[in-house]
């Protein structure tokens, strides 16, 4: 692989340090700052993946960290993502909590034409949580309601009712793979399903345009400890890159986000990993 040297789309990193509904350990509002520091200092000698920081990139702050109003956050994140797209740049949103994802997705009017591929420990399909539909536990439900086809990978925590809402009353997590054929379509591979079946069953029929959202708790806490709600038995970094390779093989990345870094729980590993993922996504854009 050749390190990217400006041959790809220029990138706009949209920092969205939104933190209003973190369930357990607070601090993901400091995520963008920690990632920015790592991104600026990425060692270019990544011999395994030949990925370094993109040659043409800008960093914009969508809103101040103190902003906790969901409507204002959505408006500001959407505006910056829209401006990036209008300028021919790839928008990569840097959270902040997962609630920023539906704010970014709101700029695509043709929701049915943009598949959302989610890496996460949690399904995030709740209709509402703790009194609000704009909780980070509801992010994918909002995307689904907009009409985006969903592909959920590596999930290992969900409420049965939220699965039934999207995948039907017979939804059974023990099958490892949940499928919804009605529009919008949805696929969910559990962690063990991903381990035993590989990613391909969830990608059959996947559309050509893809938005990727990575909640860092998709990864195993041994490689990404800096998250607010750690869950055991996550993906390794290399498993995640392999799955991303499969997702983007022959498809177009229209945008992406990396969310839920909690620097207070991190020793630097998770922030660096997040920066590498963003550089990797920029390379594929």
């Amino acid at each position, binding site marked *: 692989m050749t390190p990217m040297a400006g041959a790809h789309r220029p990138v706009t990193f949209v920092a969205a340090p939104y933190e209003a509904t973190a*369930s*357990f*350990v607070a601090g993901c509002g400091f995520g963008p700052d920690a990632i920015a520091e790592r991104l600026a200092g990425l060692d270019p000698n990544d011999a395994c993946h030949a990925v370094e920081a993109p040659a043409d990139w800008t960093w914009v702050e969508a809103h101040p960290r103190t902003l906790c109003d969901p409507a204002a956050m959505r408006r500001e994140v959407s505006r910056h993502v829209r401006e990036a797209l209008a300028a021919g740049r790839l928008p990569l949103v840097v959270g902040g909590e997962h609630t920023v994802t539906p704010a970014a997705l709101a700029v695509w009017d043709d929701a049915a034409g943009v598949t959302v591929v989610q890496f996460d420990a*949690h399904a995030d399909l709740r209709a509402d949580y703790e009194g609000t539909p704009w909780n980070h536990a509801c992010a994918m439900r909002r995307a689904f309601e907009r009409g985006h086809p969903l592909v959920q990978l590596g*999930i*290992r*925590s*969900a*409420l*049965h009712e939220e*699965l039934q809402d999207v995948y039907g009353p017979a939804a*059974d*997590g*023990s*099958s*490892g793979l949940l499928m919804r054929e009605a529009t919008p379509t949805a696929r969910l591979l*559990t*962690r*063990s399903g991903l*381990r*035993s079946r590989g990613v391909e069953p969830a990608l059959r029929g996947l559309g050509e345009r893809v938005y990727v959202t990575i909640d860092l708790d998709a990864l195993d*806490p*041994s490689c990404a*400890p800096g998250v607010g*709600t*750690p*869950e*055991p*038995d996550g993906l390794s970094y290399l498993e995640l890159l392999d799955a991303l390779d499969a997702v983007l093989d022959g498809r177009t990345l229209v945008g992406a986000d990396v969310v839920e870094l909690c620097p*207070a*729980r991190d020793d630097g590993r998770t922030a660096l990993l997040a920066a590498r993922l963003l550089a990797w996504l920029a390379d594929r854009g």
Partner: protein
Amino acid sequence: MHVGQFLAPEPAVDRERAWAVVLPAPFDRSAGGAPGARVAPAEIVAASTQVETYDLELGRDPTDRGLATLPPLELSYADEDEALEPLGRALEVEARAGRFPLVLGGESTVLAGTARGLARLGDVGVVRLEGTLGGDDVWHGLRAAPRTAVRRCAEHVPVRSSGWRLASATAREWATTRDTAGPAARRLAARPQVEPAPADELVRGLPEIVYLSLDLAVLDPAALPMPGNLEPGGLSYADLTRLLDELFRLRRVVGAELTGLTPHPGNVLPAFVAARLGLRVLALAHRQRFPTPSCWE
């Protein structure tokens, strides 16, 4: 100390309407690695409120037929292992009432107490998973300590200890001659996913009815980074959950204990791991007791 309700079931039920009960046993006297187990039940329950009650991999919600958490037991710190008798009595009461007891330790010494209750239930064996074999006779003058827990247990009920990576020469000799030493961690860890988990080796020689004694230190420090769990070569989370799945297929499991959490300020992961394992054990017991999830009925 008030600890709340494990998994925060809604609606909360009292023990008479529950199929399973959680028994907090904050015993913390003689852990070899680090103290702190006295607050472990409270930490595990707090983390469990952030864990979904539905076990996605098993398709089971152990709260759907009633789950109750009892007030923490008050246990004496006296050296005699009779000090843990209240735990044995509480376990016996719940098991006789047909409820599945899940004990939340506390250090792994609590096995010396649960074994006393199990002995009164009849022909029950103990499947022990721990980072330490536990077969010493005394530890720093104490008859009841994590390093002696299996020895004390064996005085009441048959036990087989597996997954260990620490064992004194005398403990190994004692356990080997009695066939109490099951496979060490190296035999159980990092097995290829295509091989069946060797759970049959955990139950060799034990009765058809068993009790699970699961200490968190059976996990590798990569999976469970906490004070007192620094020895390399432990099981991964996936290794352990595959073993548990097979165990519940091989034997009827009447109850379980989850021990050995040593909380450390600022590190919530071990409590989350413990809470997830508690959910998994309850979901496996639920699968064993009820042919179908309640949502299909």
